[in-house]
């Protein structure tokens, strides 16, 4: 392996890495918030709202993010909308991962025993307060490891934005690769950078899990 070449390509890959970090961070925040909306819809009192949310979850979870990103990027101009490629990448990742995050939140909420809500209500708490003060804090602690995994999935899926010309880490690598015909060095460096980012993400999640342990 040509180590001098590795060092030469690093600055170019780091430029791509900046875009990957931005893409992932925005998608993470968006999906975390979107997931709350999804879980609210999924647990709604209204059957129509539940139906719409279930349909949304099914569509988003059962279609590839690549197809979604193409529909957004190439399809929206058909109706006169021209969001930037970067925005299309963020939106596609948020749309798909909100569905996953919503189901993760729901699993967490349903894992908290119903007796806890009943106890809170019997103490005179309003249902909303029981949810926010009693159920959600426990549910979120329980799903932190799963959310961490999902965060890594978002990081890796951000590479799909390269197909619509976003020069994130994978696209930067592809451009380098085509010029230099040095796949091993380029892929090795890209993998190392993705691995480092995933380690940071998972480390952060572990820190959160340590700070907010599950109490049984």
């Amino acid at each position, binding site marked *: 392996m040509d180590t001098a070449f590795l060092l030469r390509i690093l600055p170019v890959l780091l430029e791509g890495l900046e875009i990957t970090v931005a893409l992932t961070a925005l998608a993470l925040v968006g999906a975390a918030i979107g997931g709350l909306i999804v879980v609210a819809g999924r647990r709604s009192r209204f059957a129509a709202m539940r139906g719409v949310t279930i349909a949304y979850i099914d569509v988003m979870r059962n279609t590839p993010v690549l197809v979604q990103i193409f529909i957004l*990027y190439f399809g929206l101009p058909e109706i006169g909308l021209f969001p930037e490629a970067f925005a299309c990448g963020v939106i596609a990742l948020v749309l798909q991962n909100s569905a996953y995050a919503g189901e993760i939140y729901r699993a967490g909420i349903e894992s908290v025993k119903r007796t806890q809500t009943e106890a809170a209500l019997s103490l005179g708490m309003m249902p909303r307060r029981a949810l926010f003060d009693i159920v959600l804090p426990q549910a979120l602690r329980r799903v932190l490891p799963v959310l961490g995994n999902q965060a890594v999935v978002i990081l890796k899926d951000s590479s799909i934005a390269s197909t619509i010309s976003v020069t994130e880490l994978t696209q930067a690598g*592809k451009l380098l690769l085509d*010029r230099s015909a040095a796949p091993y060095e380029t892929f090795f460096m890209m993998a190392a950078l993705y691995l480092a980012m995933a380690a940071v993400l998972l480390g952060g999640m572990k820190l959160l899990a340590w700070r907010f342990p599950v109490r049984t």
Partner: protein
Amino acid sequence: MEVCRSLLSWVRFEHRASLCLSLVLGFVALVAGLGAAQAEESRLDAILKRDKLIVAVSNSTMPTGFIDESGTHTGFEIEFARLLAKSILGSPDKIEFVVVNAAGRFPAVLSGRVDFGIASATIYPDRAVRLAFTRPYMDSTTFVVVPKDSPIKKIEELDSADVVFGATNTAAMIDRAKRYAPKAKAMYFDTDSAAFQALKSRRVGAVQADSAAAEFQVARSNGAWVKLPGQLGSLNGNALFMKPGDFQLWLCLDTIVGEYTHGSRYDEYQALYRKWFGAEPPPARFYSAK
């Protein structure tokens, strides 16, 4: 057995240890020697032994390698690769295609997954450090395609901050975009198809593409797109590419390509060229040009 046992008891432990070590070293040397001999064996021998070519090709570049309406993988490069199979193995069907995109074509040959590639690869100095190219099987110029109603009428007008200029994410395309339209916003896609889809959806205002692909897309657009007059940059050569270091295979391929483009098989090449590009190929000899 008795003899063996008495012999072993006669040989002192140290001697036995050194004997074992020698045997192990000898075995390692033998294996290494075989490995070296194997490494020196040309891939051409392997091709002849397996009686089949394994070739990296594109399926998203019209008209050189694409899937037609009937689902058939075809194109100029696909059929040219079949001609190579016919020359090497006696049948155009003794070939297996491995579909690659721009990012996957060089790793495919360097990893040894395929014998060589024919996937619109331009001979390029940076690439020549790590890849071996044959002589070109076709010349390729670069044209710029714009919508018919585009305000861009000349190549010089591409260099404007208002222009979004699309291309595939290859080194030559990027260099041309930077050189001839540095003020334009450049967008790079994985395939020609995606770049032209971006033109169709008005994501980009102009697309640069290899002459063959550009002509084909303009012809297919039913008048919606036009080609800007002139070419972008200089003439390129598209060539077969392979892992360097295998002189025998390289020489074989290079010679065959030469025979098609300039020699004994020129008539077959000419027919193929006419079929896919609707034009005459460069003459077999410059002095035979009319």
